[in-house]
């Protein structure tokens, strides 16, 4: 009888704590963050959010920057990034989809005013692949 009571209480406390994390906010004081990528990675059990921001206190400058971040199912922040390719920023994250094996996240964006095809490791946001479709005159 005692064991049953303890289990019940533990579950109840856990549930209340998890509920109170949501909703989760992320962004700068301007509130200029659009969501264009929203996906769940069941392998890592992470929620991935991406899009575009013009908040200088979220990305490094008030011009367009692509952003991504990851949360666990309880709403805990796991990682967050904006991205540069040496001299230019990834200016937007416009879409995403888990790769065919579900082991990484394919991400479409823009950089240097040209389309980008990327593949990201969802556990830490690092790049596996970065392809810029450059225009050759």
């Amino acid at each position, binding site marked *: 009888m005692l064991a049953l009571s303890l289990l019940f209480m533990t579950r109840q406390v856990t549930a209340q704590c998890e509920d109170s994390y949501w*909703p989760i906010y992320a962004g700068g004081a301007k509130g200029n963050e659009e969501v264009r990528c*929203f996906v769940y990675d069941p392998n890592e059990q992470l929620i991935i959010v991406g899009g575009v921001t013009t908040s200088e206190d979220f990305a490094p400058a008030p011009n367009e920057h692509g952003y991504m971040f990851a949360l666990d199912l309880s709403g805990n922040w796991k990682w967050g990034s904006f991205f540069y390719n040496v001299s230019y920023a990834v200016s937007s994250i416009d879409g995403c989809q888990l790769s065919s094996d579900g082991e990484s996240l394919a991400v*479409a964006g823009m950089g240097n005013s040209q389309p980008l*095809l990327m593949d990201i490791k969802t556990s830490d946001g690092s790049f596996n692949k970065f*392809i810029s479709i450059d225009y050759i005159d």
Partner: protein
Amino acid sequence: MPSYTQYGAIYYDKRDYRDYQPYFYGAFIKDSEMFMLRVADGGPAPTIDWNFKFVNYSDNEELVAPLLNMKEPNFIVPDPKQQSALYMIGRYRGMGSVIRFNKRDGSVRWHAQFNKMSSITSVSQALQQYDDDLFLCGYYQPNEGTTDSTTIDSTVNFQAVMARMKDNGDVSWVITATGKHPFYSANTLEDQDKCVGISYYKEKEQIAVVIQGKMTEVRGTNKGDWFDTILVLLNEGGQTSKVVAISQGTLQYDMYGGKNGVFWVGDDIFFAGHSYGFKTQKQVL
């Protein structure tokens, strides 16, 4: 340099069904024309394996049908039943479109066009390989190209649309969901409802839909001229089982839904968007 517009269509197939090599599939707009390409990623450097341009309609054709050249490549998704095919989903010929094409060479198998959906902004599939249904949602702008202002404001009528489609292009059902603006006035304050997210939960036989809207029929009577997030639960037949309007409390802020911004994890529904923050029973701004 040309002007590019990215709508987010991407798929990374790490093991092609024919040669076992990895390929990226993408699509974007270059100037005003749509391109779809496959990038081979198995060699020392990525190379474009094939690339197709969707040629624009002529000025004369566009004069007769002004929406013909409007397009948005929003998604490229696999067919869970057939490894040789992909879908490109979004807007083509000015209407919500699903194009089924062959991975091998980009050739089009079929193109389905929704004449009462202007663009498809979300797609969901079951994860099981035997399930071939596509669940689609977007919006319909009935007066686009005729009486609508080119500036998107409250005079422009938007209606949320949801649909279910088989892998042969047959549509099981299409639903339009809309309601009156809180201060409705014909041609001044019109319907403002767009579907931004749809997610199918096969085991539960339910579909979660997120509408960014102002419809008075499901919002509180004190909610005014701003966008709320409206969560709709449908059964597999497209019948509504529950509607919840999520508002900012007393704050008069718009809430904009994120593109494709809803999914199920177990029995929980997660959705995303942007605003100046949510005010709920659990959190106060």
